[in-house]
């Protein structure tokens, strides 16, 4: 909201998600940037209208997975091949 308005914000309530998405789209086209939607369940399409960044969660999970896999393998390799080599039946 621009500074020359006397109000600092506006809250609107919608019964259904379709009119809400329409209103959101129109507000967005009118140039409003600071918009937020509160809903009792996840509504499809809000993020597209608000042009938000892509999720970072998958990247974090993937990185953690790679770190876990490499780290786990390293612990096993270090434990049974370097620090305390186990030779079972002549197999390394």
């Amino acid at each position, binding site marked *: 909201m621009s500074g020359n308005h006397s109000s600092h914000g506006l809250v609107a309530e919608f019964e259904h998600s379709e009119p809400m998405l329409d209103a959101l789209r129109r507000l967005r086209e009118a140039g409003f940037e600071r918009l*937020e939607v509160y809903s009792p369940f996840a509504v499809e399409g809000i993020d597209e209208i608000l042009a938000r960044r892509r999720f970072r969660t998958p990247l974090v999970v993937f990185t953690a997975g790679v770190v876990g896999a490499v780290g786990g393998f390293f612990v096993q390799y270090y434990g049974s091949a370097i620090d*305390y080599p186990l030779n079972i039946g002549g197999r390394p």
Partner: protein
Amino acid sequence: MPAATLTEHVSDIVLERKTPLWWWVGFGFSASLLLVFVGALGWLFFRGVGVWGITWPVAWGFAIGNYVWWVGMASGGTIISALFFLTRSDWRSATNRIAESMTVFCVACAGIMPIIHLGRWWYAYWLFPYPNTMGTWPQFRSPLYWDFAAILVYVVASVLFWYVGLIPDMATLRDRDTNRWQQIFYGILALGWQGSSRHWREYRATYPILAALMAPLVCSVHSIVGLDFAGGLTPGWHETQFPPYFVFGAVLSGFAVVLMLVIPIRRAYGLQHVITERHLDILARLMLTTSLLITYAYGLEVFMPFYRGEAHELASVMSNLSGTYAPWYWAKIVLNTVIPQLLWFRWVRFSRPLLFIISAGVVIGMWIERYVIVVSSLHRNYAPSSWFVFTPTFWDWATLAGSMGLFLTGFFLLLRFIPMVSMFEMRELAARRKPEPAE
């Protein structure tokens, strides 16, 4: 049913309604069983594993059978909530909270069993790979070690999955509540959830990832439980089919225990319009499918030793079919294979008492299956001089009954304090359903 009314109904069970009498009776019974567990463990810790009937060569007795049984039932909950989330099956939203809550406490019971079976359980932390003064490491090539890792991951993941799916509902309870203490309690659990589109965005990124991790995790956990046995050279254990065999059995008992919980809960809480006959029908069909899968595995279990013609394996199979443990063996066949065939009939699937009885039979049958696998295989090993008949002691049974007490106590507490139906998922379903008739 309109979404708002549903939310009211489900949250009122937790917030408004007076705790019903059946809850106090059930909770009292469960807590008494939990006391039995405490007593059994206390005596075990005091005297050692000798209080059980296990000895050489049957060194794995009830504790390991119980462990496989509990972790198997846990898997059913995860399959329902994770796998059917990924396949976008709407029906799961009505039952996933019950299934996940069941999983959490089944995994808790499962996790305790191998630890108390260790004998010197106070050295359980040796399982962690940490640099120690002995200069040793765990044996990473042992399936038993993989099992430790799998269970640890499964405990953490299923609690997380359950809790992440609970956060929006905790916020609903916080907002609907009038009692200060409950507001604080649920407010803390809701982790500041406001239902803003930003929050939903994060939720919708996190939950599917967790589900996608959980679905294969169930299969890997149970395959590794199977490998615990397949990795041993005991006749009757050394089977390549064990990993899928154990997954089938796990899922079968999982569906059965979900049915056993869902049928009374929907009646007691008046949730018939949420958990409909269709849900019970689907669960019954799934139970029938997994019963057929496990039947196939039972067939192979008998066929393969005859196909290979190895004397000790034949002795093990013949002892199952007609030896000391034959009644147990045939009980498992009747309970897991024969009786579930009734589910082919529509009227059986739509009869709740019958469904409950068949499910109870499967749950018992699956315990018997693990008992037969563990004990009957060990009692006929390669050296006939060491053949031995295992007889469970009072403390064996007390541990089994007590672990049920732990499960039931936990479940009754959740039943009282946690909404048993995922309210926000039902709201989403109701909202999605609404436009259909208009079109």
